[in-house]
């Protein structure tokens, strides 16, 4: 995929995260456009594009949200290995299900990581609040966003690519 297109996607995701996402909260969770763009890029363009887009999106998102880009990069990092493991182990689920498993597990991880980072800086951590107001609504929003974008892209003829690193030329 064109580098400029990936850059445009990363900028769009970062801008949408601070301009659109806070306007449509479910409980205390918001859409994660950075996760959705990276996960969909992984499915439709393969891991090469995702490996380039993921750090770029994390850095730009860190800039606009005043969070550590390093923390965000670590937070979104499980997307690639989870998707690769699902493909390598030949888990009998289709691409949409693979996208959901990789996307939702990464969404959960990044929210947990950000919560722990906030706690490290003095925030309270009531488990009930975190589970009911952050994790569960967050999973719902991630599911909705991935689904809303995935099927129209499939409908217009975009085919999913292999999500394994080996088939993309990254064999060790």
């Amino acid at each position, binding site marked *: 995929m064109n580098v400029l297109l990936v850059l445009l996607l990363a900028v769009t995701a970062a801008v949408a995260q601070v301009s659109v996402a806070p306007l*449509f909260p479910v409980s205390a969770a918001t859409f994660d456009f950075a996760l959705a763009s990276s996960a969909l890029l992984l499915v439709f363009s393969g891991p090469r594009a995702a490996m380039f887009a993921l750090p770029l999106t994390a850095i730009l998102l860190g800039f606009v949200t005043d969070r550590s880009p390093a923390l965000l990069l670590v937070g979104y990092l499980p997307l690639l290995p989870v998707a690769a493991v699902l493909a390598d182990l030949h888990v009998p689920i289709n691409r949409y299900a693979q996208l959901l498993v990789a996307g939702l597990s990464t969404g959960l991880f990044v929210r947990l990581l*950000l919560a722990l980072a906030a706690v490290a800086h003095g925030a309270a951590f009531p488990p009930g609040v975190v589970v009911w107001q952050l994790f569960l609504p967050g999973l719902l929003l991630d599911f909705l966003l991935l689904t809303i974008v995935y099927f129209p892209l499939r409908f217009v003829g975009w085919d999913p690519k292999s999500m394994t690193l080996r088939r993309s030329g990254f064999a060790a």
Partner: protein
Amino acid sequence: MVGLALLLAIAGQAGALDPVQGAFLRVSSPLTNLVSGIFRPIASFLSDAGNLNELQEENRRLRLENEQLQTQMVDLQRDAERARELEAALGISQQTGDETRVAANIVNRIATPFDSVVSIDRGAAAGIQPGMVVLSAQGTLIGTVTEVFDASAFVRLITDSRSKVNAQVLESKTDGIVKGTPGRGLTFDLVRAQVKIGDTIITSGLGGNYPPGLPIGKVSAVSGGPQDLYLKIDVEPFVRLSTATTVVVLTSFVPQRIELTTP
């Protein structure tokens, strides 16, 4: 990737990313404003449609409050006039015009149960520094500046769960600490005296991070019995922080002690 994360962490700590971040914020701010302006009416419509009963009740309550405030304003104007007359008679005067303020627009919002942060479109070029106090257009305390770039700055709102403000009850002069909660609300902690629903909470000025007397909110709920060491007090901010679009930075106030970190 992990190596890159480490590099980013080191670069972030060293401040090497700050110029790039400032430049990106300057470039992306107009775009963010545009996109936000397009989606805000849709979000507002959906929110209003879902809270019609609540809005009607709020409207009724605000009408009553407005009437009470109008009455209080008349009383205060009368008192002020009387004070001016007495000052003139006694030959004393009070200087109050040394405050300088900078108005700014909210550009970005970052809202999770733990973060209540906004970015504004004024920065170091306008004289803004980390630790400065941020107010609403009406003068209610909103938060504190945490990071400053040339033409933008980040503000941690008082509802952020890392935020703590030394405060007191206006009516009883009882001191305590206003803290943000994970649900983007406020609690008034470490209070040992009686507090009533409707009491006004203002900054106490203790600790030196905020000037005294800034309005914060009013007590919305009090729980706990005589056996409890401290009462559990919920505070409703005077300003609706989620919809504020303009803020004022108090550039003349220099905080005495700054303990601000960002994750």
